[in-house]
């Protein structure tokens, strides 16, 4: 499962819009967002770079230490180092975020393309099913899936993926529908291109380009959702180092050991915020290029 990390750290994603419009400058916000994501990705891939402490090593004598020079983020009820746990937590949190988005996108692609290019009855069926799923809050859909399959990291990931799919599918379908009737698709017909060729060469690339930007936005959301599921005890299970699970475990001690919840919380906000900020600016850039 090395794919998600490379996906996230891929510099091409961030630099592509700049390449199409050389004049556009990189803003401070984009630099910060890319920097945060790069550091988190690094922590996810080689946590040893940031801490040599074992995130699972317990030391009851050192329990509930507030942040100090030895334990930057303090220690938890079993004396585990919160900093080490937060750093190691990046792996599962980011993995869930990226993998869930990838699953959601893959499902959405199948459904959206079916609705977008399929015959009327197929489009009708896909759209109606999508609308029914759309009516349910996303997290509820994830909960239903977990209730059926049972909790765990893997299920949480798939659950978040499934629950985001209807939204993406809907966008993909309407994108394809819009591009299908575009004058340049007709121009391709006049040039004697087959339907399959036009679909592959003109319709899909134009319809799907904006979706990748959307996926970047989706990663931020998926990280929050995955953490929420872990917090509810339905995702990663203690003692695994995962931000949502850490929040859940630290909740009981929130009045006298604030560091147990605040630091993982900050990291959730950082990761989701950076992914969202990056997605937004990519969205703005592609719009600039188009207009």
């Amino acid at each position, binding site marked *: 499962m090395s794919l998600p990390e490379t996906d996230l750290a891929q510099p091409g994603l961030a630099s592509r819009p700049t390449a199409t419009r050389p004049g556009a400058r990189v803003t401070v916000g984009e630099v910060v967002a890319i920097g945060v994501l790069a550091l988190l990705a690094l922590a996810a891939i080689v946590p040893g770079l940031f801490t040599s402490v074992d995130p699972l090593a317990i030391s009851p004598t050192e329990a509930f230490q507030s942040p100090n020079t030895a334990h930057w983020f303090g220690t938890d009820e079993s004396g585990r180092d919160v900093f080490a746990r937060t750093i190691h937590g990046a792996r599962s949190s980011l993995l869930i975020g990226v993998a869930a988005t990838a699953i959601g996108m893959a499902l959405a692609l199948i459904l959206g393309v079916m609705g977008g290019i399929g015959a009327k009855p197929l489009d009708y069926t896909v759209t109606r099913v999508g609308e029914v799923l759309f009516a349910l809050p996303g997290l509820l859909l994830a909960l239903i899936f977990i209730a059926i399959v049972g909790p765990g990291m893997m299920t949480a990931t798939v659950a978040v993926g499934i629950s985001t799919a209807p939204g993406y599918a809907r966008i993909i379908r309407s994108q394809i529908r819009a591009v299908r009737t575009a004058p340049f698709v007709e121009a391709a017909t006049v*040039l*004697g291109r087959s339907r399959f060729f036009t679909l592959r*060469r*003109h319709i899909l690339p134009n319809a799907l380009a904006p979706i990748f930007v959307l996926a970047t936005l989706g990663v931020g959301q998926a990280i929050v959702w995955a953490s929420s599921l872990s917090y509810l005890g339905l995702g990663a299970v203690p003692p695994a180092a995962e931000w949502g699970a850490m929040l859940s475990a630290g909740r009981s001690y929130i009045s006298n050991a604030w560091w147990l919840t605040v630091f993982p919380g900050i990291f959730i906000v950082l990761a989701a915020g950076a992914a969202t900020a990056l997605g937004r600016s990519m969205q703005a850039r592609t719009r600039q290029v188009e207009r």
Partner: protein
Amino acid sequence: MSAVVSVKDLRVVFGSSSRQVQAVDGVSFELAAGECLALVGESGSGKSVTARSLMGLAGAGATVSADALRVNGQDILGMRQAQLRSIRGREVGLILQDALVSLDPLRPIGREIDDSLRLHTSLTPSARRARVLELLEAVQMPEPEQRMLQRSGELSGGLRQRALIASAIALNPALLIADEPTTALDVTIQAQILALLGELKDAGTSLLLISHDLAVVSGTADRVAVLQDGRIVEEGATDQVLGAPQHPYTQALIAAIPSGRARGERLSAEPVRKSSTLSRPEPIASATPEILMRASDLTKRFQLRHGEELLAVDAVSLELEAGRTLGLVGESGSGKTTVARMLLGLTTPDAGTATLLGQPWNPLPERERRNRRALLGAIYQDSLSSFDPRFTVEQVLTDAVTGGSRGNAAARARVTELLDSVGLPSSVRTRRPLHLSGGQRQRVAIARALAASPKIIICDEPVSALDVSVQAQVLDLLTDLQSELGLSYLFISHDLGVVQHMSDAVAVMRDGRIVEHGPATEVFDSPDHEYTQRLVAAAPRL
């Protein structure tokens, strides 16, 4: 008579110090009461910015300076926003090109016109209503009582423009600015709107008329100022400027007008292509030219809402001959484009057939048409949207040359040849059509249409979106290519001057029917049908 408008050394700069654009560069003019001055120039010449500066609407990021900028003796430059707002509508009325965008689509036009009365006067609601009716009558709106309750989307283009004029004159402004007021309208409607503006002028309103088309302003304007790159290069009485233009730019603009110009006569001063060794087109001597495409009784109906049916094309028959141009002229909604789509095999006719080189063409399954598509090229009005937005010019043309596979050396050579043949420099290869000018885009479209060496090119309003001088270049290019390659054109346009200049034969369409069909000279010089007579009479000419 004191000047209503007095502009002295107006300068408008856009952008900050690093990337400045001088849109208006020292423009001066005066406009007396009841006088009409036309500002004429191409896109980017600064004519609209000049006029908008008179309302304090030069635009975001604009720096306006002038020795004098006065309307009715009031200094516009020194005004605050609140003062400018009170000027707008009351002292200066503005009419824009497209009333569909200028009017709120969700409100009845009566309410729109009432707005300025409500904001600027203390009239009672019933008095305002009476005034709105009076205004709609003044702009010759048919059935004003009912129309005032309709929204702009429910009105035709001409009626919308009338409503917009009514709202602009609601407060009897001393100055009316009309920015390309008829560009979006059909010729017969254009003539009516210009006549209406002329009446307003005669009633004492000063009129600042802005257009890229000298022929449009010639009937209405008392004086003409020709703008180029933000400067007035020539100004004078209309007859004088149009009859004996002094400046080479004015001469080029006048020469570019196709109306009344013989078939094959050059419109643009500069050669369209660097190495143009082409001969002038010669009259086709052969008595029976080869018929490439024949349409017989093409008919198409469209289902509208409420179960109504629109007979868009009604038994249209026409023939396209090798090396010749058939002009198809008609106003918007006459069915021209639907005919083009049926000939292109994009729309299946409900009745009738089209044949290509004697073989069935439409109706026919696309599969059986595909390998003969190379015989037929197409150029569209909005060429930009006919290119894949992700593609560069090179990719667009390589795709057209190779049929979609990857380019090789032969394909590259062919692309170079195509670019040469339409007079584009090879520097455009790496650019996207979005970043090209309208004329360049249309050349790329022509190059793409030529890629497969077609015998016929269907041109659907190919120059309607272009400035007159650019239009002249594109028309000259099409003429050159025809004589060089023996192409057959179906040339569709709403512009009679353009069609007359380009066509050997002409078909006039109205409400889906061809009402008159014959050699171009006959149709235009002695139109038989009453509708053609009206069209010819309404066409603006110098």
